């Protein structure tokens, strides 16, 4: 059991445990907080994958912006913050069965697929290479600009929707 495996299990447990907590929380606000813990676990997994920029981006965008946005969306719904929701509904046994089958199929698929692993180390300047590919015309320059257009569309859509209130 190398240190990396222990850390992987730890962060995986945090992420999965927080997800379970999120689904079974009685109050919606608690569910949102569990979700933020799940984001933190995923950021830890990114660090283990030697992608520290994405770990920081996960904290930055997900925990910072999207977490706040979701809590605001919860608060916009009148009365939602005060209810204690029941943990399960009537068909919980069927949903549990379906989820278990799904989990089994996925686990079997992941187990027996021959994943291509490489022993090569992650290059130290991976972030620089990402930057260079991002603006390279034969690289991802067009998706880069299209992403900007997508963000503009999101902003315009948001302004339009909220203004009609």
């Amino acid at each position, binding site marked *: 059991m190398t240190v990396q495996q222990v850390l992987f299990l730890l962060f995986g447990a945090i992420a999965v445990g927080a997800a379970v907590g999120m689904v079974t929380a009685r109050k919606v606000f608690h569910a949102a907080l569990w979700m933020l813990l799940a984001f933190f676990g995923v950021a830890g997994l990114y660090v283990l994958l030697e992608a520290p*920029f994405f770990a920081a981006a996960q904290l930055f965008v997900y925990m910072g912006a999207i977490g706040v946005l979701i809590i605001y969306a919860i*608060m916009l719904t009148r009365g939602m913050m005060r209810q204690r929701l029941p943990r399960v509904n009537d068909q919980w046994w069927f949903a549990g069965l379906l989820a278990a089958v799904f989990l089994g199929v996925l686990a079997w698929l992941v187990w027996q697929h021959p994943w291509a692993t490489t022993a090569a180390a992650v290059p130290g300047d991976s972030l620089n290479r990402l930057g260079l590919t991002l603006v390279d015309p034969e690289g991802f320059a067009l998706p880069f600009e299209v992403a900007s257009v997508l963000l503009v569309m999101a902003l315009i859509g948001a302004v339009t929707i909220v203004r009609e209130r």
Partner: protein
Amino acid sequence: MEPLSRFLAFLADAIVNIGEWIRGLLLGTGLAEPWVSLIMKAIGAVVVAFFPLMVVIFLIWAYRKVAARMQGRLGPNSSGTWAGPYGILHTFADAIKMLTKEDIRPQGIDLIPYNLAPILVVFAAIATWAVMPFGPKLIGTDLNIGIFYILAFSSAALVVFLMAGWSSNNKYATVGAFRAVAQLIGYEIPQLLAVLTVVMVTGSLRMQEIVDRQHIPLLFQLPVTAFIFFLASMAEVNARPFELLEAESELVCGYFIEYSGMKFGMFYLGEFMNSTAVAALFATLFLGGWRGPWVDQAPILGTVWFLLKMALMLLVWMTIQLTLPRLRIDQMLAFNWKFLVPLALANLCVIALVNKGIVEWFPGGVSAWTRAGILLMANVGIFLVTWGILTALERRERRHREAWQAAQVGEVEVSV
């Protein structure tokens, strides 16, 4: 003379040498290498975690003294009871007070977010110190995403205010928390755009490399960027004039109304730690960090220069905080979204184009001084254009107002 010169050589790089000595001791006790490394890192982590605490203990006293001088009131050593020479023990009196106050638990609070929020505030404040460069080889860890790590943690800490505000079961706390988050998310954009400009000019996210590349401090190359970063950081740490989150006269302490005793102390500590971190960050990004004369011969002087620059920024912070009144929330948000963000975006574009223009027009490369001069002119140009736009807007508004007033007077005269 021989022991003296050896002693001086030891002192010249004192902290690193002490670290090596401890490592030698640990290796001597026969522990394996990875464990020694881990113990060294743990010792380093404790030192790095305690450094902001030490600074804050000194800072609270210094703040009271400077406030007394600037605002013409009694300071910590004139308050009646003796608190050490010059009132130095004042901070300890504050800490003891907070430790021994009763923790009043209001009814109807949500226990887990209520208790977790003060812990997470200090947690996030300490976590940002992992990448501060204290000296040429003194840094917690020189992450290759250095400055982005700091931005990520200060962004992730936003949700803690919502936790504190909502779990307090108090209308004032909830409104305070909403306004706090609105202010903090607003001012994060110009802050990260200014940092983006610095990253662009220095070409690296690593803190040590940003300091290394500043042969001329970036304050003189990019003054507008420094100004934007400074204002945005003031707002991020709730310093006046952006202090409306703690406005005693309006919101009665906003999101931490229902906290008492040490939990309130945690928020207080977190705010001062954040201010120190921001001062250190400004010193690193724009004033050249640990650079200064004679650092090559005696690296310990690098730490001294860093602390001096940080102290200078803290002094500027205190001066502004003690002399300006607070803004209203709509003024503050308008200032951010209608002035700072467009300015930061324009600044980024102009610097990008000018810097590339330098490379294109002088294919042979330019000296650092010429480049600094051209960037400075570009910044002065941005400043003049902004000034011109603002003056034109103000003139137009004044003409509108005078026309409206003239119309009012005209109406009154006609009716009489």
